[in-house]
């Protein structure tokens, strides 16, 4: 039940007070209202990680790519090894 899922902020609906700041967030096309009180800096277009109606963090796009950079390096180095053989 601790699963948090990534979604994209489509629209910020209510910014009347910090506790009530809410966004419409798209989770692969399905929309839900998510509270933004814990990520006050979040903006439209950001991907956030949401859990039980509350955004817990903004996904760092650069860091998200790193695992793939690392995998690419892995592939390259194994290919170099193969070539060397």
């Amino acid at each position, binding site marked *: *039940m*601790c699963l948090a*899922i990534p979604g994209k902020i489509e629209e910020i609906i209510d910014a009347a007070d910090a506790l009530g700041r809410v966004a419409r967030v798209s989770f692969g096309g399905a929309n839900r209202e998510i509270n933004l009180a*814990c990520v006050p800096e979040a903006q439209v277009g950001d*991907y956030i990680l949401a*859990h039980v*109606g509350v955004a817990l*963090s903004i996904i760092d796009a650069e860091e998200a790519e790193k*695992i793939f950079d690392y995998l690419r390096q892995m592939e390259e180095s194994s290919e170099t090894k193969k070539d060397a053989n």
Partner: protein
Amino acid sequence: MKYLDEYRDPRLASKMLKRIAERTSRRWTIMEICGGQTHTIIRSGIDRLLPDKISILHGPGCPVCVTPVHIIDKALVLASRTDVIFCTFGDMMRVPGNKEDLLTVKARGGDIRMVYSPLDAVQIARNNPRREVVFFAVGFETTAPANAMAVLQAYRDSLDNFTLLVSQVLVPPAIEAILSAPDNRINGFLAAGHVCTVMGYREYNPLAEKYLVPIVVTGFEPLDIIQGIEMLISQLENGTCRVENQYRRAVTEAGNLKAQHIINEVFDVTDRTWRGIGNIPLSGLALREKYRDFDAEVRFKPGDTVACESSECISGLILQGAKNPFDCPAFGNRCTPEKPLGATMVSSEGACAAYFRYRAKTVEKAG
């Protein structure tokens, strides 16, 4: 979905698994402590694709599974009251108390509503000023900000008909309880990424140092978990025991300070009982004095019961990594997700339920 599907690529997964196999020279036992990770590992068969030398144990990482029987009994008492609308996450409906579960109370006419968020329960309280609305606030650190925010909103709106039945638990004290057990055989931990999204991972440094175990903060998708395991294995093979972060796209060392502030405003650390494990000092959260009016136990005094768990159920040992669901004689026959004897079979993230769902065929073959 972006940030999900790309972390499920089987081709990349098998490359990483191959690297792990090349690096592993000795037997290593790893524990993960997150029901979401348990589910991913068993569903995608990661545990069986790893070299035989690596064993994966599933720790007490599911709040549904570790909510103690006496709290479930309190929930049943509150949900049975005619003046109460009892709101809960759907996962709690079938968790057995001493005699029955919330589903049974609902069938008898109890006004029990499954909600997606504690903030939805606050809205139900606003809409029903003449009824008492109780929210069953279970969860780890991941869920604590939402539960705390529900209290802050109710406080701000002066709602006098909203309370929480709190069963909030904290992960690092449970890790310490497991590591300090005399027969501990765990060499490394995958720490639950979503808990660390909120709390960061500084709390794990003293644990890694004291018990000489590497700890890797890890995400939930197959590639995340496999990379987390790879990071653990390379530390184990190199003889280091640091805290590392695999889940960098969502977790920073300090965590979400705003969320921590909200939790600290509403909750204070307290001792908690874990189902199947027992009391762990300072392993949970309770409402602070300022918010005592929002404590359902204070308002309704639902009374205490003494837990009498099914004597067959070994879920406590499973949660501590001492046994595997297949070691339980009731598994798959007297105990199924339809008729669970213990909490690890109820929650879809419990180890017994994950094995039942994805490994049932193996059992038949083996039997």
